[in-house]
């Protein structure tokens, strides 16, 4: 650090640092001149009080009391917003709309499938590429929106827009049904119970799923591996509905139970899809096979149709759940947020 010739040089250095942190503004020189005068007046007053000139340390104490140059510059500079409080709620709304309701659907339903096609069905690479593009695309979209709103803020465009509204034209109050109705839960419980019984009867009564085709078709060996996990899934479904019925005060449970159920289904589907493609001879494991006594051209055709249909049904379910899980998670988060905000509103005023 260079030596100080006199205490006033310390003030000059301080003002130089404040100048560095002050943003470009027409008032910059005025702000610095006022600050300079204030500091020098403080020094002079102290000198009159002591009857002598102040040394460097005493001047440094005055500057320390004033604050760090960066903080002082921040306090003295005119307040500016990239996006001000008037525009901010609109900005946030547009950002959410574009990112969640435009970008994500476009990438899931258009860009994703197109990428999958260009990578010849290599879904892992296609998924990674799509996710990467979604990530960078979201940043670009957010940047453009932020820039547009910053321009609107800077040019005061919003102040020129005449806000026309009529209380009579406002939409009716929406009723948020956060708790499922008793009837809905009871039906769900009954359906899950019937489903479980049906599943238990299935191994010895294949006509319950194959109908008349049960005379020449039977379940493939893959179902022997996955029968117990599917049974466990059905039991979980039953418990989930039972819990919703018995504990209606657990408002978070239906959404959380739905998420857990979906994740459970997704895991089993993944294992099934992996298992059907991993045979030693490279062939796909069939979901249904012909009984040895009924091999005809027609039964082979029916068997092929059933196998392809089951495969497509499983893939469709997989895709549906991939979309449903984030939606259920978002609903759960929204419910928790609403519960918390209701709790805050009903709690006694403690914030004061």
């Amino acid at each position: 650090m260079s030596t100080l010739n006199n205490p006033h040089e310390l003030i000059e250095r301080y003002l130089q640092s404040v100048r560095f942190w002050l943003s470009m503004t027409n008032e910059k020189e005025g702000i610095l001149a006022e600050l300079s005068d204030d500091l020098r007046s403080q020094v002079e007053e102290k000198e009159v009080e002591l009857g002598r000139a102040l040394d460097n340390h005493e001047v440094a104490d005055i500057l320390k009391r004033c604050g760090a140059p960066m903080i002082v510059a921040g306090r003295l500079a005119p307040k500016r917003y990239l996006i001000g409080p008037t525009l901010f709620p609109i900005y946030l709304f547009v950002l959410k709309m574009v990112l969640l309701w435009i970008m994500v659907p476009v990438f899931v339903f258009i860009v994703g499938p197109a990428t999958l096609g260009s990578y010849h069905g290599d879904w892992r690479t296609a998924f990674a590429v799509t996710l990467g593009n979604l990530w960078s695309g979201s940043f670009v979209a957010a940047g453009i929106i932020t820039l547009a709103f910053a321009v609107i803020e800077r040019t005061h465009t919003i102040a020129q827009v005449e806000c026309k509204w009529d209380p009579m034209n406002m939409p009716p109050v929406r009723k948020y049904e956060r708790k499922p109705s008793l009837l809905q839960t009871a039906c769900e419980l009954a359906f899950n119970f019937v489903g479980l019984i049906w599943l238990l009867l299935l191994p010895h009564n294949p006509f319950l799923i194959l109908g008349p085709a049960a005379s020449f078709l039977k379940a493939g060996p893959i179902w022997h591996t996955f029968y117990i996990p599917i049974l466990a899934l059905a039991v979980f479904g039953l418990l989930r509905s039972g819990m919703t019925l018995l504990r209606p005060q657990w408002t978070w449970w239906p959404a959380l139970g739905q998420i857990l159920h979906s994740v459970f289904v997704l895991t089993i589907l993944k294992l099934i899809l992996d298992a059907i493609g991993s045979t030693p001879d490279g062939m796909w494991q069939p979901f249904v096979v012909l009984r040895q006594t009924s091999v005809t051209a027609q039964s082979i055709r029916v068997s092929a149709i059933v196998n392809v249909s089951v495969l497509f049904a499983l893939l469709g379910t997989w895709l549906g759940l991939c979309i449903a899980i984030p939606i259920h998670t978002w609903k759960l988060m929204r419910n928790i947020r609403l519960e918390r905000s209701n709790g805050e509103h009903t709690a006694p005023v403690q914030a004061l």
Partner: protein
Amino acid sequence: MRLELRRGCLTLAVLTQLRTECYGYTLRKALADDGLEIDEGTLYPLLRRLETQGLLESQWREEEKRNKRFYKLSPDGDKILHQLLEEWERMNASLTKILQEA
């Protein structure tokens, strides 16, 4: 909460003090002498805001070999100050009444 209460009081105190012309440091000192300490980072932005709102007028003048910015209440500021002081007295009376009842 304390800051909100202080912000309104400071504005009123600054406007009242500036019925007589003075520059930043003397204003700060006068307020401090009356028990209302205010730092540079709060006073100068407040003065500029009040000037932008047309409640104050300012003028750069040389005094004691230094350029100083002198502030005083504008005619509009004088009207507003009267209204604010009336409001303040009403609120003060109400608050005193509430406190006595409690």
